[in-house]
């Protein structure tokens, strides 16, 4: 069993409170830094893609998991980040400037969407964001002058002071650096006043108002932050894709991001990362499964979408706290072994009460 023995408040709210955590995450970082030495270029590219998805998932998690605002349309912000970045590069903006600016651009879009969007709740917000995503997808296709329309937009290779970041290893390190920075920044934000305000708005708006929290400002801020981080992921995605077309940013991408966040576990950055890893590995898993199935069932990608749905359904039904919930339960089991009580995390049966009067 593990007991916390803190002598200063600061120890209580540190990010890594125990030696075991510090060692564990240190090892993980070392492994990730050493990856290019052992992995092939192909695998490195895949890992970079997973890192990009982690960033996007963390972006969505800020909005949906931490502030309680459902967004079924985050692909729109990925697209805005990607196209914005590509366009800026084409205009000659240096890469180190274009990347954060793409995030800022997406953040501004999030601001614009957020201001009207906060007037609606729950289901309605889900539908507004859904509709927004579809509209953006269409607009990208039609705005040929800037986005190249349905014909597509080529993305210049990233160059930093003459050195190219196009090859797998430097690109991988770029994605890793951005992912780690985003993770740290968000982790710090979420354990400070702003993060607490997010959670307050999520859990009880009435109480939040009564404590002096400007609920509208917090929601719009969450939208902007979430969109900005997702846009950053989009900018990196532009380099990964090399060539942008509207059908890389469809509703399916939005739903994929939501799957990552929900399966990962709402309300935790670790959940966003775990969810991103699982969802991005799902196609590989399905391809692997296809080897065992008869010819007819392995036709096109019906199986992939079926498996994605099945995994989501299983999590919603049996593990609503997601992969992060599993992780916490496992950790609780290990920490309190052998005194772990089986019903520690048992869920209460609840009856449906209308949410129309929230």
């Amino acid at each position: 069993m593990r007991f916390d023995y803190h002598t200063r408040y600061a120890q209580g709210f540190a990010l890594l409170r125990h030696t075991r955590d510090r060692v564990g995450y240190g090892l993980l970082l070392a492994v990730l830094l050493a990856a290019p030495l052992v992995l092939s270029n192909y695998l490195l590219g895949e890992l970079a893609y997973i890192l990009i998805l982690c960033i996007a998932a963390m972006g969505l998690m800020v909005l949906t998991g931490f502030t309680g605002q459902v967004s079924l349309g985050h692909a729109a912000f990925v697209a805005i980040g990607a196209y914005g970045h590509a366009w800026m590069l084409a205009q000659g903006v240096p890469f180190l400037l274009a990347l954060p600016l793409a995030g800022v651009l997406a953040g501004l879009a999030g601001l614009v969407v957020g201001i009207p969007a906060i007037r609606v709740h729950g289901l309605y917000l889900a539908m507004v964001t859904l509709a927004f995503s579809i509209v953006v997808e269409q607009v990208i296709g039609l705005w040929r002058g800037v986005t190249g329309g349905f014909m597509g937009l080529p993305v210049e290779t990233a160059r930093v002071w003459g050195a190219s970041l196009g090859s797998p290893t430097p690109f991988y390190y770029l994605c890793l650096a951005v992912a780690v920075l985003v993770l740290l920044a968000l982790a710090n934000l979420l354990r400070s006043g702003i993060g607490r305000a997010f959670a307050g708005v999520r859990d009880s708006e009435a109480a939040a108002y009564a404590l002096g929290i400007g609920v509208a400002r917090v929601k719009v801020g969450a939208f902007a932050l979430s969109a900005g981080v997702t846009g950053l992921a989009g900018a990196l995605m532009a380099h990964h894709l090399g060539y942008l077309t509207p059908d890389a940013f469809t509703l399916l991408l939005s739903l994929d991001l939501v799957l990552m966040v929900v399966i990962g576990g709402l309300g935790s950055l670790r959940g966003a990362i775990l969810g991103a890893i699982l969802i991005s590995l799902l196609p590989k898993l399905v391809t692997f499964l296809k080897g065992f199935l008869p010819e007819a069932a392995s036709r096109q990608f019906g199986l992939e979408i079926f498996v994605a749905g099945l995994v989501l359904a299983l999590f919603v039904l049996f593990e609503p706290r997601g992969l992060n919930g599993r992780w916490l339960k496992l950790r609780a089991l290990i920490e309190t072994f052998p005194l772990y009580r089986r019903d520690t995390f048992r869920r209460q049966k609840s009856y449906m009460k209308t949410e129309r009067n929230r």
Partner: protein
Amino acid sequence: MTDSLALFLQVTVNGIAIGSIYALVALGIVLIYKATEVLNFAHGDLLVLSAFSAWALIAFAGLPFWLVLPLVAAGVAALAYGMDALIVRRIAGQPAFAGVMLTIALAFMLRGLVSMGFGTEAQTYPTPWSGQSLRLGGAAVSELSVVILAVVLVVTAGLWLFFTRTRLGVAMQAASQNQLAAYLNGVKVKRLNSLVWALAGATAAIAGVFMAPVSLVDTSLWLVTLKALAAIVLGGFGSLPGAFVGGLLIGLIEQYAGVYLPHGFKDIAAYLVLIAVLILRPRGLFGEAHGRRV
């Protein structure tokens, strides 16, 4: 009759024709929402399943349309009943988000199964009214569209009467507002909810079977769910007449946008309407405004 007026009339007729399909799909979704406050994202996929099943029965089993319609409706109703009884029921009491996620998951599963089972090629099949049209003023309207509109009117009226006049319907509304209290009043909530799902499944089946001849059977047909959502929002959440009116209006708006607005607006017209309504008048045309006591 002048050309522009004839065009307007034709576009209006087309709008009502496609709008009545949207209305039928919207009705099904509102049904489930009224009873369980779950927004069924899988509704469009039930529609696609119905359409493909109808095609398979007509093309391979050679059954006549008259037989296929009730068969598919009954089958999909049973499937919907099962979906609720076995799966969706388990998340009662959890926040609305869980319901959305679960129905999205079911939508994915259905879509995957349909793709795997029926293939990806678009199909179509004949109906007793295919290829026949009437002339209404200066506009040509297919007999099939008239039949669809009539069916939708009947279904809407029937459902509205059911919810407001019958004991079962009132019980369903009670269960949606406070499930525990409904239980305590002897309402068999679980069975009722599954029945509603079956009813909604039947409406999806009817829409699917009738729609296929209008616009090719293909897995992308599930997108009609989104149009139906726009219809529901416009008409007012939780309102059956609203879903009907909303569906027709969305159909009309789309067709007008296609003809009178620049290229590209037709595809996003429904979504722009959805966004505008939710921002400006969230309760739509016939919906109720809700508040909360603190």
